[in-house]
């Protein structure tokens, strides 16, 4: 069976204008720099990283909302960059997105029914009102808003954050997508309902075989939902592998540091924390060599010269660090 998403050597640069009136230099933000990965059918891949690492740009590029500078994104075997008009609409129908902020991602003056029906209208998928009504009800109930009739005529502000996120999910489900891109789906929600939404996503994966790319900065929750984890730093993948392996035996020093600072809800388990000082450098002037070396606790002189590539460290587990090759 082929993968649903295949990304090869993806690169996305944003031009920034710097300098005065006369000596204008074109500089670029390297939002995504040579990233390759695949997503299998029915798989949950978590893309983890700090803000500014390029993970949100990755989500928008996968959605076809940003055009890649170079590289190929194949969805269902079709390169979305070369598609036009109708064809891209068809591919897009199979890829839907869930946003971070359920308070902002719903139009405040549309009823829930209108919001969930909107994708159907846009794609002209239903012939009559009754069919539309049925599909909206089914999507709402699949997203856990039961009974749907209680919600359909309400406005977003009458619902709680968790319910709104379910509406967003219903709006995606109504198109029966094969791939969901979830951009921080629970980070704005209360702890007590995060699990509900995550479990709902897992359920959808199980029932409908939907693949999910989950973009998040919260390493604490990814272990519960993801099959594989990809860690990004400054537009690069630095480590990718099976979730448990990455969490329990991280190979890249960045992954290790990140994991060590995730607070553990148990005062008896104090660990050695590796707090990286400073902040992620800006992605305009990238450091030479390994881009993590200025903050890396184990950096060596050669890290300033050679840019490491992803290399296997265990079964299906790769990391990009020079120290790994020397043993």
């Amino acid at each position, binding site marked *: 069976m082929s993968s649903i998403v295949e990304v090869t050597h993806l690169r996305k640069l944003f031009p920034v204008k710097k300098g005065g009136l006369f000596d204008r230099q074109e500089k670029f933000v390297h939002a995504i720099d040579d990233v390759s990965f695949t997503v299998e059918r029915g798989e949950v891949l978590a893309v983890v990283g700090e803000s500014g690492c390029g993970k949100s740009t990755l989500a928008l590029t996968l959605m076809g909302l940003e055009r890649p500078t170079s590289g190929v994104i194949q969805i269902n075997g079709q390169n979305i960059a070369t598609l036009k008009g109708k064809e891209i609409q068809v591919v897009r129908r199979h890829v839907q997105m869930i946003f971070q902020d359920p308070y902002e991602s719903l139009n405040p003056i549309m009823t829930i029914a209108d919001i969930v029906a909107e994708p159907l209208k846009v794609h002209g998928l239903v012939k009559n009102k009754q069919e539309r009504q049925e599909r909206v009800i089914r999507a709402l109930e699949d997203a856990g808003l039961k009974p749907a009739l209680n919600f359909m005529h309400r406005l977003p502000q009458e619902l709680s954050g968790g319910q709104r996120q379910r509406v967003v999910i219903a709006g995606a489900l109504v198109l029966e997508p094969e791939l969901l891109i979830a951009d921080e789906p629970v980070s704005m929600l209360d*702890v007590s309902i995060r699990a509900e939404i995550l479990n709902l996503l897992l359920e959808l994966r199980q029932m409908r075989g939907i693949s999910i790319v989950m973009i998040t900065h919260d390493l*604490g929750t990814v*272990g519960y939902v993801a099959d594989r984890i990809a860690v990004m730093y400054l537009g690069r993948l630095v480590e990718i592998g099976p979730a448990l392996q990455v969490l329990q035996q991280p190979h890249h020093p960045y992954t290790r*540091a990140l994991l060590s600072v995730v607070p553990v809800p148990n005062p008896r388990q104090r660990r050695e924390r590796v707090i990286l000082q400073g*902040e992620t450098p800006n992605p305009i002037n990238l450091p030479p060599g390994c881009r993590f070396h200025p903050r890396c606790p184990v950096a060596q002189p050669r890290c300033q010269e050679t840019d490491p590539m992803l290399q296997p460290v265990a079964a299906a587990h790769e990391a990009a660090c020079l120290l790994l090759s020397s043993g």
Partner: protein
Amino acid sequence: MSVTDLSTDFLLESAPPAHALVNVSFTLREGEVLGLVGESGCGKTTLMLSLMRLLPANGRITSGTVNFMGQDLLDLGENAMADMRWKHIAMIFQGAMNALNPVQRVGDQIAEAIVQHNYIQEKGVVDGRVAELLDLVGIGPERRRQYPHQYSGGMRQRAMIAMALACNPQIIIADEPTTALDVMVQAQILELLDTLRQRLGLSILFVTHDLGVVAEMCDTVLVMYGGVTVEYASVDTIYNDPQHPYTRELLRAFPDLSRPTEKLASIPGHPPRLNALPPGCRFAPRCPAVFDRCHTEQPALHQVKLGHWASCHLVERM
């Protein structure tokens, strides 16, 4: 600071007043970090604003005392209270961007905080104090002339902390200080707060919903739900011997990296709205261990053992 039986009502139009806060008591000792935990809408903000007496116009403190430096803050005149704020009790806010004035240099804002409260007046001394504060929070002196938008999120939060420390307060109220930040920056800020606590002997009231942060930062924890104290104990007791079902459920819902294979639990339903509180225990509609009495009678805060309080009928029975 010791707070006893603090209650706050919100006056509503065309409805009886909502009891937003009912008989909350706690003590904050010198150098102690007290974690205030709960979902949004559980009364954390109301408690904070009541302590500072900054409630909105329809809020009324109906009972209780807030003892601090030998006086009851609730008895102070408005001027004396204004003097108390920032000089003795300072605050750090969640979104540092909103809390800083975008058109004023960061150094000037810190200086303003110092001068405003007559902490120091002479120009030269103020400058020295600003430099000292920035150094304390780890901001290089060259950055004092920059504007907030030139700062990253973590730097802004550091600047906020420097402002809070301007007048050498004894207490800092930190309202979700790391919520919007990345884990690494969060770790930096938490480390900074911890060092400052040790160096300056600060007491911190740490308001958050992140149980992981509480476990790492706090000495004691106050869990709130629907405006009521649910459980109040040392951090070790809360995490390893929780008595109230709400505390237990909250812990089960929080992801723990050290046990990544367990299924994450959720608490169905949502916190009660203040204008529609259940008649009995406020957690009853969502409680997994609920029984008849919970629906009719509000449980009182009951001492489980020394320094461990919980308000649940089940605890009383034991």
